[in-house]
């Protein structure tokens, strides 16, 4: 049975990527599906070239494939929200929040003096060392970790803009800081869980 070449596979993958399927974890599955269908048509006696069969297949199925991708993104969003919701009550996350709560009560001055700087540095580090490489490298752009990172950076950016840090010694704002740390810890826990999941499954390939 005729198998597609490496160039053919890359052609399919690049076409899907240019059509908006930017997450590697779903694109590789779609690529395999399209490639398997083309190989099957060749096996059944289709004598046309790879490009003609591919073109014909895409004319018939492109709408289906892209619709499937939009649904996939919605599902990923829902999945990371549920995962983060569960992680809000994970023992490690709760232990961290307890630590912050104690810290806020013992050293309120620390939070009023340095919190703004810590918060902005944290967001900056996330953006520079985690999110930026995703924009540069397409291969490593996995859906769930990307959603979590974008969520984390956007969440921190907006809370940084809205929380009145100059009044951090006031009780309600200190509670705001604790809740902020709690949500951050839950999202970060989800992110590292997802990274571990991807590492376990994608390491071999």
């Amino acid at each position: 049975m005729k198998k597609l070449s490496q160039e053919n596979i890359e052609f399919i993958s690049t076409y899907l990527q240019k059509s908006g399927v930017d997450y590697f974890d779903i694109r590789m599955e779609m690529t395999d599906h399209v490639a398997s269908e083309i190989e099957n048509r060749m096996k059944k006696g289709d004598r046309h070239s790879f490009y003609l069969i591919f073109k014909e297949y895409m004319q018939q199925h492109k709408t289906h494939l892209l619709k499937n991708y939009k649904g996939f993104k919605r599902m990923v969003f829902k999945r990371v929200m549920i995962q983060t919701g569960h992680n809000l009550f994970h023992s490690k996350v709760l232990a961290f929040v307890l630590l912050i709560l104690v810290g806020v009560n013992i050293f309120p001055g620390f939070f009023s003096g340095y919190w703004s700087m810590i918060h902005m540095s944290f967001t900056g580090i996330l953006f520079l060392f985690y999110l930026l490489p995703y924009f540069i490298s397409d291969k490593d752009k996995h859906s769930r970790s990307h959603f979590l990172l974008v969520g984390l950076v956007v969440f921190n950016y907006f809370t940084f803009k809205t929380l009145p840090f100059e009044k951090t010694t006031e009780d309600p704002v200190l509670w705001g800081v604790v809740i902020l740390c709690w949500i951050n810890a839950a999202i970060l826990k989800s992110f590292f869980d997802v990274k571990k999941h991807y590492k376990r499954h994608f390491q071999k390939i």
Partner: protein
Amino acid sequence: MYGYEITQKAREISGGKLKITEGALYPALHKLEAEGLLDIEMVRVDNRVRKYYKLTEKGTRETVNKLLELEDFLATLRQIINPKPDFAL
């Protein structure tokens, strides 16, 4: 099994009557994976990466339950369509 293989198997077993489109299959597989009913494995095959799905223990238990529910439902339908004659009349 991998996605394309599932579509072909369904078509083969049903004699071509059941055609699962990729738009219906993959969201269902991803949902089952998210619910912990399916486990995945990535393998490099023929110049590309292939994602294999297999039932987890929880998935196997759930399958058995769903099949029992389906059998029960079909039995009820059969009774409705072909009711046993009432000899008491």
